[in-house]
């Protein structure tokens, strides 16, 4: 047999077999990995946002499709009633994306709390966006007013010296507000479905 053909068969064969094995392994572990990722990376932020919930919001999650995109909603329940719904959005910060979990009241659409799930902002400067003083200023934000810094004509006071990071948080929350507005009509339906399970 031709040398080149042999080379081809060996390399392609090994790669295909490996692909098959990996696909199998991926199928087996995928679900677990998603749950683990949520638990360890976003879990703490989600629990902060839905702090008064009595259920495990990580298990009460639901994926809905909004304008072609898939969004995962986390339901915080108290006494069987949904008190708050959290979702994740991201915006480009100073040193990479800043992932924000924002919680909303399902009735009024008011922002109940936000928390930073993931960020690589500069320690000591940009990282101060994770502080309660800053994240707390989003609580009670009206659905009609999009989150924005005071210097951008909004209502939020930025963290001194960390304008880029603060602005990233605002735009992430604003995106979440917009998403939630789109999702809200279908929520009661999702919720009912959720309650059935």
């Amino acid at each position, binding site marked *: 047999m031709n040398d080149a053909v042999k080379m081809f068969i060996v390399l392609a064969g090994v*790669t295909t077999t490996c*692909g098959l094995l990996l696909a199998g392994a991926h199928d087996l572990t995928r679900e677990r990995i998603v749950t683990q990722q949520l638990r360890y990376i976003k879990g703490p932020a989600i629990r902060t946002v839905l702090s008064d919930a009595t259920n495990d919001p990580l298990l009460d999650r639901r994926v809905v499709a909004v304008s072609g995109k898939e969004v995962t909603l986390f339901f915080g329940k108290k006494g069987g009633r949904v008190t708050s719904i959290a979702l994740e959005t991201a915006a480009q910060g100073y*040193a*990479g994306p800043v992932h924000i979990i924002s919680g909303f009241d399902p009735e009024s659409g008011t922002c109940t709390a936000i928390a930073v799930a993931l960020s690589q902002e500069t320690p*000591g*400067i940009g990282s101060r966006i994770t502080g309660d003083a800053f994240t707390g200023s989003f609580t009670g934000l009206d659905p009609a007013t999009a989150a924005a810094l005071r210097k951008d004509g909004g209502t939020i006071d930025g963290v001194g*010296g960390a304008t880029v990071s603060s602005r990233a948080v605002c735009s992430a929350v604003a995106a979440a507000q917009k998403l939630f507005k789109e999702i809200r009509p279908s929520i009661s339906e999702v919720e009912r479905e959720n309650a059935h399970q």
Partner: protein
Amino acid sequence: MMDAVIVIFSAVFVNNILLARYLGNCPFCGVSKNLSSAWGMGIAVIFVLTIATAATWIIHHFILDPLHLSYLQTIVFILVIATLVQLVEFFLQKNAAALFQSLGIYLPLITTNCAVLGVAILAIKNSYDFIMSVVFAAASAAGFLLALLCMAGIRERLETVVLPRPFRGTAITLIIAGIMALAFFGFSGMDATLSSLAHH
């Protein structure tokens, strides 16, 4: 523009790929014996790292991500890098003989240099766009060259010095690298200054 400057500064000094991110240490100890080979290796790494990061970025964003195959990242990236290095080697040999003479021998060493795969993965992880990824890769490699040159300069001098026998060779190289890493810590303050400038 400012973003690019900060990425470059951070990749070369603050998060130096060798001294702060711990990537590419095997060639760091192996090829730092004299300045000329340090130059050769450093330039070869800049060359390969930039091409490899550009290629893996394209593959990740146009193939792996749309097909939901990002879990194959490791195997795909390393295969692409290995093939690419081989291709570059052939290409240089054919079309740029002079360049091949000076870089050629370092190319096989680069395939298993974790700096290449590491930077390709980091560029994806930091979600840089294409231009930024390339800038990041080139700057990281420039940081590699910088550290390698410093080390080679020190080791050339060190050759004439009487050392306790057990410390000769790699042992003293690592200890010097530790002291250099300590020196590079000094840059972290400058990183903070730069970023606060950018924030305003």
